[in-house]
């Protein structure tokens, strides 16, 4: 019964979305306030019903109602509770239900926080948001119904894919979707602005917090997915340039560009048309990601062709929204007024540089991901595009961008003084060069480019710190004064610093891991010892363990450093009983704060030996810690007073308050 109620709630959510997609926009056209006001309650109701539908499916999973097809196919009565819950979105239908529920959540949030938006803009934004919602409710209800039942309930379920039975993957999809779907708001604001034909700096101030929030979630989601791949797949890699990863990276890159161009729009009323286009592109890439992952087109073009219902449905959604929004853009972009002028060397110029390179990088990922599909669909030619392609295109595009990151925040708006910036950053530059030389000296004979990479990482980190240092006049004024200035700095300044610092941290991790990792692949018998970097690892033998829904063979290893046994590592192989599918559970020990000793066990041999993969990964944790810094930076930036959407201050005084710190510099 609860399942049927959930299904019904989803239909009601669709009905409300249809109302919300028509009446408010009609109200704007007819200047009818009461019609415009329908948007708010409709968005709230939509969230209520989509939330109920999601709760109903969760309930079915929690109580293991195997009469529901979706539960039968993805759950098992012995599965631990956390995976019964995460199993709700660990499958196609459930994850699409999560997608629409999050979309409804964002719609409700816009309705709630957007009460002080101009009435027409709010109505248009919520109207556009509802178009997206209608399309995806229809997709779920017509092609991917999670509430379908069997005539006769089976006794036991088929269990969730063992690879997904992992805490990391339990929270990864919701984070990723909060990011993906969050960009729909930027899209709705862009479409609303085009419909109204009016856009100003205030628009950017309203859009930025939503974009920032989505970006923070997407950053965390991608980082989480990457760390999961690292420890769960057991090959020691953390990014594979797989189309599914690329599907999440593209909106992240475009979203990063959008965050930066929106700053220019907000502060200087420039780059308006470009910002609107980026908002459209960012969400289009989110939709593209959904299409790539959900349609089965990645498995093979032929698989897509043989069962095209879902794929074609999403493709239609994709084409309708991307094409439609670009068409409105083409028709209306010229009506938007052009904004402020600036010299090439200026803060705006630096942000344009950022956008140019991020866009080119997005294009590299885009074409690399889609080209094999396009080529096969058009000429039938089969090519592969893998990691080596992206390393050759994406990599070089990142270098100039990263080099400019520390310079940007030092440049003044309108017209910057490069010489003054150079003077301020001279010490940082010298330290970065020193880092290159020291690294080169310490790691003689290693990869040639690695010391340069370390230098760029130091440049990024110290450059970010230096910006704060100069702003609070550290060492130039008494410490008390500096501290007071530090407290007074706007949240967005701290956020910028943290995020840019995080990029440096991540780069350091990437460089160190890829250049200086130590790898040992070998067969070991009980009692044998191998030396990896400075550790001696002794294989003590296998051990059988019975888990809740799997059987496990653990390989015990004693780790000795400087003659002292420091720890025992137990990598294992699990066989999940229902699907009789093996997974590798790596054993990872963190040493020196950020470096990891990584053990992954392979096939057992008849002679008692076991195939082992042992890595020493220097500073590998910095990769994800850097992402964490970026996410924290985004969050701190969100606390900036002027970005508070619901801030009760009138717009004029808020604008005056922004102008002050700029003038004070």
């Amino acid at each position, binding site marked *: 019964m609860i399942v049927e109620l959930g299904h019904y709630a989803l239909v009601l959510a669709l009905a409300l979305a249809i109302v919300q997609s028509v009446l408010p926009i009609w109200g704007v056209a007819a200047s009818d306030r009461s019609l415009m006001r329908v948007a708010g309650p409709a968005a709230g109701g939509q969230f209520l019903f989509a939330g109920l539908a999601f709760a109903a499916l969760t309930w079915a999973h929690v109580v293991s109602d195997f009469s529901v097809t979706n539960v039968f196919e*993805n759950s098992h009565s012995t599965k631990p509770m956390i995976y019964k819950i995460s199993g709700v*979105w*660990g*499958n*196609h239908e459930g*994850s699409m239900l999560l997608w629409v529920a999050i979309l409804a959540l964002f719609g409700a949030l816009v309705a709630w926080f957007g009460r002080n938006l101009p009435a027409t803009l709010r109505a248009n934004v919520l109207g556009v948001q509802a178009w997206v919602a209608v399309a995806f409710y229809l997709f779920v209800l017509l092609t991917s119904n999670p509430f379908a039942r069997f005539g006769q309930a089976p006794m036991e379920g088929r269990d969730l*894919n063992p*690879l*997904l039975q992992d805490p990391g*993957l339990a929270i*990864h*999809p919701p984070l*990723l979707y909060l990011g993906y779907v969050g960009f729909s708001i930027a899209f709705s604001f862009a479409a609303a602005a085009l419909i109204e034909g009016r856009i100003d700096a205030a628009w950017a101030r309203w859009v930025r917090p939503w974009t920032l929030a989505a970006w923070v979630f997407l950053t965390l989601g991608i980082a989480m997915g990457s760390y*999961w*791949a690292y420890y769960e*797949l*057991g*090959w020691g*890699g953390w990014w*594979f340039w*797989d*189309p*599914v*990863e690329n599907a*999440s990276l593209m909106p992240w890159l475009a979203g990063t560009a959008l965050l930066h161009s929106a700053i220019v729009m907000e502060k200087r009323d420039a780059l308006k048309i470009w910002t609107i286009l980026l908002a459209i592109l960012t969400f289009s890439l989110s939709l593209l990601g959904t299409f790539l*992952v959900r349609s089965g087109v*990645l*498995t093979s073009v032929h698989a897509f062709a043989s069962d095209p219902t879902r794929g074609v449905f999403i493709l239609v959604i994709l084409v309708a929204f991307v094409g439609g929004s670009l068409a409105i853009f083409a028709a209306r972009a010229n009506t938007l007024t052009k904004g402020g002028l600036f010299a090439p060397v200026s803060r705006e110029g630096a942000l*344009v540089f950022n956008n*140019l*390179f991020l*866009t*080119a990088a997005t294009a*590299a990922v*885009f*074409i*690399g991901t889609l*080209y094999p599909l396009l080529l096969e669909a058009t000429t039938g030619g*089969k*090519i*592969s*595009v*893998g*990691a*080596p*392609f992206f390393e*050759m*295109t994406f990599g070089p*595009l990142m270098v100039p961008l990263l080099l400019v990151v520390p310079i940007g925040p030092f440049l003044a708006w309108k017209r910057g003084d490069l010489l003054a910036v150079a003077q301020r950053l001279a010490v940082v530059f010298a330290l970065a060069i020193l880092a290159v030389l020291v690294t080169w000296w310490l790691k003689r004979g290693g990869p040639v480019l690695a010391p340069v990479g370390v230098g760029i990482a130091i440049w990024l980190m110290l450059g970010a710190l230096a910006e704060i240092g100069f702003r609070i006049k550290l060492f130039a004024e008494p410490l008390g004064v500096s501290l007071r200035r530090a407290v007074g700095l706007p949240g967005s300044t701290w956020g910028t610093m943290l995020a840019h610092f995080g990029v440096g941290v991540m780069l350091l991790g990437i460089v160190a891991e890829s250049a200086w990792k130590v790898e040992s*692949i*070998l*067969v070991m018998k009980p009692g044998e010892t191998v030396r990896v970097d400075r550790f001696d690892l002794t294989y003590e033998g296998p051990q059988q363990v019975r888990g809740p829904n799997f059987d496990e063979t653990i390989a015990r290893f004693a780790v000795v450093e400087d003659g002292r046994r420091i720890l025992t590592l137990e990598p294992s192989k699990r066989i999940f009983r229902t699907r009789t*599918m*093996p997974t*590798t559970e790596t054993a990872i020990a963190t040493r020196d704060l950020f470096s990891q000793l990584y053990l*992954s066990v*392979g*096939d057992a041999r008849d002679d008692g030996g076991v*195939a082992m*993969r042992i890595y020493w990964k220097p500073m590998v944790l910095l990769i994800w810690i850097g992402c964490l810094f970026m996410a924290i930076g985004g969050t701190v930036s969100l606390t900036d007073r002027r970005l508070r959407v619901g801030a009760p201050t009138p717009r004029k005084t808020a604008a005056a308050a922004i102008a002050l710190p700029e003038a004070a510099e």
Partner: protein
Amino acid sequence: MRPFVSLRAALLGFALALALVPAAHAVKPDEMLADPGLEARARDLSAELRCLVCQNQSIDDSDAPLARDLRLLVRERIQAGDSNNQVMDYLVARYGEFVLLRPRFEAQTAILWGLPFVVLLGGGAYLAVAMRRRERARAEAPLSAAERARLDEILKSDV
């Protein structure tokens, strides 16, 4: 054995419809060459070669029997004295361009290789032209009558 496709499946939190087989290990100890220099070359080449029956996996990563055959083949060619390019040519002749994870630059891949740089250079050129045009427009724009009057006023009052 079905190809290992879990990464793509799981990264967005779904896994049905695809038969997933997790990786045990790709390169096996018994396949490796005794000479570390040659083995390093083999590993580098392996990372550039696609496991033909897998989803976007290099033969260095893949567990499939075919990937093992290819790894052995690469090592065989290296031991026979082939240069890296010769090994690649040999594999392309046998398995087609599909085996390369980094496609060669040719007619059918021109868009693939070109697009990122077209975006970068085209975007840069557009910006340069637009900026120069605006600069000129601003420099040449004469003052309107109202602006001139205001300017006179300011100049007079200031002295």
